């Protein structure tokens, strides 16, 4: 019967809401579900229709928020403990999670070992000429990406053509970055170093979606995953930095010359391990951080909006030229990237059924402000291009600027249509998925081809 299916769906939704909002374990959920169904059975015996019984049973159990507030008081420790020790009851599940933990640690060690391979070729981080530093800086993401790609392969098991494509992307990137004869301290080498992590992250995104990479849902899952990955990385790295600072300070206090050793072995290896652990946590513990991330977005979206309104006012009222400083273009790129990232993150965590609300108005205002600033910047730079020509940095920054602007404009149009009820949220989400291939192509261009065009300058 159709209504029975509806009721099962309602119960599933109710459980999902509980699961997403609290650190409830599967057992807790089942306990509550059993309670709900007992209550329903009794109400039905009393003569209520199934649907009425469901509504009243849910009402009695209280709003998920209330239950969660109470339950999480008991389990406030669990929210954090759960990160590494899930509350599985069966020994089998516990063994499974222990095995997973070992795998993650091995993967992190593997990334650290990959980072030591260049030593075999005599390339050291503490090379006095500084060439070693440049090499490691350029290749940093190459030590991590293969491990993550393998990890996703073991989780997802995608088809052979996809494996070939992923391996190809990785190989081309590795070869171009290391066979090109970069001049020491060249701009193009720096550009490769900055763009390669982004390029490889998108490649990892394809692996994340697996053979579903065409589906809007999968792509948005990855968008959300990226935000969570970022937050986890920052958290872990912050802890790592405190650790390193303390370790170095103690070594100094004891008069031990350990700074180089600590940096090369502990700091550098730790740096390579961070993304591995963060990628694992973001994948496995998605419901945990989901509590934090939308809140972060809600805090920073108004702040950034204020900053940008102040910027716009300064430019229009005081007539300041935004492009006086050559670094401004990069600053604007970073600003736009953050804005796009925050808006996308907020969208990815959004309840699809919720109507257009004040938070959406803020999002929209943020995008419009970013577009205005970007137009000022582009107008400023257009005047100067004729004078100074295209340097590698300027070309790369300009390309990204235009891409981000197009993306923001596309999103803003979709958002306005959605606000005016002329388009669905689904449509807005599918607009965004069409932009990702362009980013991939542009990043590949900067990493693979630009060094050639500029003669490795």
């Amino acid at each position, binding site marked *: 019967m159709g209504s029975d299916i509806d009721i099962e769906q309602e119960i599933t939704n109710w459980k999902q809401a509980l699961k997403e909002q609290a650190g409830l374990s599967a057992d807790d959920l089942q306990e509550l579900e*059993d309670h709900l169904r007992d209550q329903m059975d009794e109400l039905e015996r009393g003569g209520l229709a199934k649907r009425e019984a469901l509504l009243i049973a849910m009402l009695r159990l209280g709003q998920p928020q209330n239950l969660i507030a109470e*339950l999480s008081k008991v*389990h406030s420790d669990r929210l954090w403990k759960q990160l590494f020790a899930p509350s599985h*009851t069966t020994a089998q599940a516990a063994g499974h999670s222990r095995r997973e933990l070992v795998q993650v640690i091995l993967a992190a060690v593997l990334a650290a070992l990959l980072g030591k391979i260049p030593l075999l070729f005599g390339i050291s981080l503490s090379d006095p000429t500084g060439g070693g530093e440049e090499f490691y800086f350029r290749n940093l993401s190459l030590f991590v990406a293969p491990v993550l790609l393998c990890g996703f392969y073991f989780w997802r098991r995608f088809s052979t053509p996809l494996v070939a494509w992923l391996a190809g992307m990785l190989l081309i990137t590795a070869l171009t970055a290391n066979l090109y004869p970069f001049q020491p301290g060249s701009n193009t080498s720096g550009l490769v170093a900055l763009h390669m992590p982004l390029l490889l992250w998108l490649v990892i995104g394809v692996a994340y979606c697996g053979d579903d990479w065409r589906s809007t849902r999968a792509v948005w899952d990855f968008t959300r995953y990226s935000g969570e990955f970022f937050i986890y990385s920052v958290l872990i790295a912050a802890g790592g930095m405190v650790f390193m600072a303390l370790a170095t300070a103690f070594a100094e206090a004891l008069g031990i010359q350990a700074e180089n050793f600590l940096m090369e072995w502990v700091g550098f290896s730790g740096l390579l391990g961070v993304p591995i652990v963060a990628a694992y946590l973001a994948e496995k513990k998605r419901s945990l951080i989901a509590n934090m991330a939308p809140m972060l977005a809600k805090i920073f979206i108004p702040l950034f909006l204020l900053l940008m309104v102040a910027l716009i006012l300064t430019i229009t009222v005081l007539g300041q030229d935004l492009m006086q400083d050559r670094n401004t273009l990069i600053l604007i790129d970073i600003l736009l990237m953050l804005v796009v990232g925050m808006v996308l993150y907020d969208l990815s965590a959004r309840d699809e059924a919720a109507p257009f609300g004040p938070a959406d108005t803020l999002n929209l205002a943020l995008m419009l402000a970013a577009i205005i600033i970007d137009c000022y910047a582009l107008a400023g730079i257009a005047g100067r291009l004729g004078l100074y020509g295209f340097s590698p940095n300027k070309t790369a920054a300009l390309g990204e600027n235009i891409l981000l602007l197009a993306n923001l404009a596309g999103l803003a149009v979709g958002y306005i249509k959605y606000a005016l009820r002329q388009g669905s949220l689904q449509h807005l989400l599918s607009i965004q998925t069409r932009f990702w291939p362009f980013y991939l192509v542009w990043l590949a261009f900067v990493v693979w081809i630009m060094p050639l065009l500029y003669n490795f300058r």
Partner: protein
Amino acid sequence: MRIDKELTAASVVPLLLLLLEQEESYGYRIIKRIRECSQGHWQWSEGMLYPVLHRLEQRKWIESFWHMAESGRRRKYYRLTALGRKELHRQLEQWRMIYGTLSQLGFEHQSQEKQDEREE
């Protein structure tokens, strides 16, 4: 009649321990039993019961196990542990003391008088 929130909070633990000493039980049944034993006056809320159950389990006063119910669903039952039994006796001792004090101060007499006044 409504029981004050503070009084509920103070009595929920001994009541739960006492109830679980008599029989292994689960959340839904516990609420029902309390309602029955209070002649339908006392309705515990789920939002209160489950957190308390989980807290007692953390303290190892009670333990839980899964059992297949007649409905065909897995159901989480709770039972008293040896530690919980000790705690129960400790708390009951205190309640007896409170009850004894109340009695000495004419508790039964008072409530009877009130009843009589109302009936007149």
